[in-house]
């Protein structure tokens, strides 16, 4: 009976994703243009600032379908795999399945042309393996974790920061050799990207250095901050981040739960701290599966019900622009607008 409702919800998710004209609002050209470039359908010079691999993977489908539909299909596949992964990793906990299916960020990210969904899937497994390594000290788990962080970094650059936090927190009290194993396995996971960069630019670290240095320059007052962008909307974005996070994430900071999950809580705290610095809802996609994996064990029935009601309300808020954009366009943006844009520009809510 319960499974029937989950299938209906996923069916609804698929329906909204395919019906809406929205494709994402940040960095989407970096991935869609590279897909067109590899499919031989891009006339201009390619100058993406991000990994070319995600576009490369989608290019054959783009060539066949002549549309971006494959990005939506892959997004849904990765999101469903995340939901299933959380369910399996939680020991087939039904609460985890419900919490993940009704996680607002899943519904928010479903139509996006973005590698974050795939990176989140890899990173969830990287976290789970390093947690296993932390408990058992078995090297195979550490190697698997490193490979998964590398794979996540193949498609999404920002995973670097989350990966550093993961390594620092979980390896701080281990041997130096463990860190070496982690870095080597990370490089193994990174191989697809390195090979593609070598093929395209004759330098395996080209896009890694380009995007990392670009991010660093921006953090020191690059083009976005010198124009004042983001100043006014930061409070709005922080509010949306708080809504996108599971309601009971904050419960992890109680001493009782902290004692049981010290490293995980510190890791999540560092990541949330980073996300608050540059608040964008899509970043929550990386953390939500990990948070749900932990809190699903801690919530009682009353808290679970509250969490579900909270999630449904936030999902309705997040998908409203997508529903509007099934038939109408909002403020004439080419790829459509999400809830941040809608609140910021339409209602001047800053």
């Amino acid at each position, binding site marked *: 009976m319960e499974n029937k409702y989950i299938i209906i919800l996923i069916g609804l998710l698929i329906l909204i994703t395919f019906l809406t004209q929205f494709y994402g609002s940040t960095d989407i050209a970096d991935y869609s243009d590279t897909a067109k470039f590899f499919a031989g359908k891009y006339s201009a010079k390619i100058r993406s600032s991000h990994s070319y691999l995600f576009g490369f993977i989608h290019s054959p489908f783009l060539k066949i379908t002549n549309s971006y539909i494959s990005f939506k299909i892959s997004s849904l596949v990765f999101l469903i795999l995340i939901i299933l992964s959380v369910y399996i990793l939680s020991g087939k906990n039904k609460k985890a399945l419900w919490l993940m299916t009704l996680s607002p960020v899943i519904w928010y990210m479903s139509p996006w042309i973005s590698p974050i969904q795939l990176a989140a899937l890899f990173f969830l497994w990287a976290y789970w393996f390093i947690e296993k390594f932390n408990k058992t000290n078995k090297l195979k788990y550490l190697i698997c974790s490193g490979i998964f962080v590398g794979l996540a970094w193949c498609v999404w650059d920002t995973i670097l920061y989350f990966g550093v936090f993961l390594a620092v927190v979980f390896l701080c009290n281990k041997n130096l050799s463990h860190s070496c194993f982690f870095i080597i396995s990370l490089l193994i996971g990174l191989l697809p990207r390195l090979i593609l960069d070598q093929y395209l630019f004759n330098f395996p670290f080209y896009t890694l250095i380009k995007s990392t240095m670009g991010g660093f320059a921006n*953090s*020191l*007052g690059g083009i976005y*901050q*010198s124009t*004042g962008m*983001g*100043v006014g909307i*930061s409070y709005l974005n*922080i509010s949306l981040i708080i809504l996108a996070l599971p309601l009971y994430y*904050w*419960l992890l*900071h*109680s*001493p*009782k739960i*902290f*004692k049981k999950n010290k490293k995980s809580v510190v890791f999540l*705290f560092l990541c*949330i*701290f980073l996300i*608050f*610095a*540059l*608040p964008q809802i899509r970043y929550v996609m990386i953390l939500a599966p990990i948070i749900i994996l932990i809190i699903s064990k801690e919530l009682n029935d009353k808290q679970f019900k509250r969490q579900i009601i909270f999630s449904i309300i936030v999902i309705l808020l997040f998908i409203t622009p997508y529903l509007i954009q099934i038939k109408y366009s909002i403020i004439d943006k080419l790829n459509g607008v999400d809830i941040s844009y809608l609140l910021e520009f339409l209602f001047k809510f800053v």
Partner: protein
Amino acid sequence: MTFNQWYMIVGAIIFILGVLLVFVLGSLPSFTGSGFIWVNMGVCLMIVGGLMVYYTYKENGK
């Protein structure tokens, strides 16, 4: 010192750091072009630090 006392002190320190970020670094816009990054990070520290103190207080009942 018990774990909960230690945890409460750490929470208080994080909260104070958050206050400093919001009201001191947040008013110095020269470094990043604007102070909003400091304010945002300060808000995060204040929330987490405040919750650590609150939850410990609630758990201990004192």
